[in-house]
């Protein structure tokens, strides 16, 4: 799953614009990634401040 580093994210909206699945929602103060994300990594690569990473889902469940 895609993980958001809240300390880095500037809520600029670039990832929302490129997400082909419309999986990202950007509110005033936070970003949310929905379940239909297919982990295509496009948002991870586009982010100007490296706020997104793909995490091994097994580990993130721990």
């Amino acid at each position, binding site marked *: 799953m895609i993980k958001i580093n809240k300390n880095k994210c*500037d809520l*600029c*909206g*670039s990832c*929302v*614009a*490129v*997400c*082909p699945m*419309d999986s990202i*929602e*950007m*509110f*005033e103060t936070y970003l949310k990634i929905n379940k239909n994300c297919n982990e295509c990594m*496009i948002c991870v*690569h*586009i*982010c*100007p*401040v*490296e706020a997104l990473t793909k995490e091994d889902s097994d580990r993130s469940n721990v």
Partner: protein
Amino acid sequence: MIKKDYDVVVVGGGPAGTMAAQHAAKQGVSVALFEKDREIGIPVRCAEGVSKKFLKKYIDIDPQCIASEINKVRFVSPAKQKIDFTTLNPGLVLHRRLFDHFLAEKASEAGAQIFMKSYVHGMDNYDGKSRKIFIKHFDQEFTVNAKVVIAADGVESRIGRFAGIKTFVKPEDIDVCVQATMGNLKNIDPTRIEMWVSNKWAPGGYAWVFPKGPEIANIGLGICGKFTNKPSALSYFKNFIKENFPEGSALTTVAGGVPVAKHLERLVSDGVMLIGDAARQANPLTGGGILSGMAAGMISGKIGAQGVLQSDTSYNYLKEYEQIWKKGIGKEYNRFYRLKNNLLNLSDEKFIKIASEFENLKEEDITITKIVVAAVKNNPKLVKDAMLAFIGF
């Protein structure tokens, strides 16, 4: 209080949205504008530069919104050669916060109601007359009927997707940026903007210095989305500052994305019009989107309100906006899009070669004609076209 029914609902309080609200309200219809953030104009994700002449076409602004007046342009080549010239089309660097407030005030003076902290999270299909839209205002849910919805919700737009319009941008069609407003700068000419072109500093894009005073400027860069797979825009930005403006101290830092795409093929659906960054209407060559967004706001606001007055807000009526766009600014910007894509293939060596032609000339001697001659001699008509396009912002 948020009412149940509005003739026109505008989503997003940037320059596109506030212009749309103003021009719709001026026709006497009821207008509400919903903005998700707590303040219009904040954060400023923008270098704040506009052409003075074109701005005048859309609004007569309060001089307080102007930080500096620009009449010189400097291109800096990858080898740091400087090409200075006087522009025929003077520019302004704005205070976007004040400017956006000013536009919002004009909208409310015209009769539009503005609601902050209002996030639009859904929209129903057109029922032949209107659409239902779903809004979270603070923590409360509201449902509103709108005969026309104008989506001015910026680069992060989702309203178009709710209407079934494909709005997602290909990575190569977005420039991602980091910018700081910096103080304590040396060697700033408050009447001159600078564009630094090099794949070393900003692959597929450029770095800019837009002055807001004798020691203060917006310094930032944008890189093409296809080159963002590390290092990131932020690391390019840090390098650029370290090497070229180490004395500066940041007063703001923001990230941002500018769609440098062809505008959407479909700008309209039944009861919906997309405008500004949401419609991917920024200038694909420069990333400038303030004026094009305002233009789209003006056209769509008028046509939307007229549709309401004629009791027809279907695609059939609203499509006039799309047609006007495609024949006017849209056509020109699609040409700039092709130009941008050709420029992407130009090497640093080629830029340096072209810049060498100007190096020993005095500023007064650099004329548009000479630039054209040098550019053509070094092959690309492309460079000439690009420079001319830049001078006009």
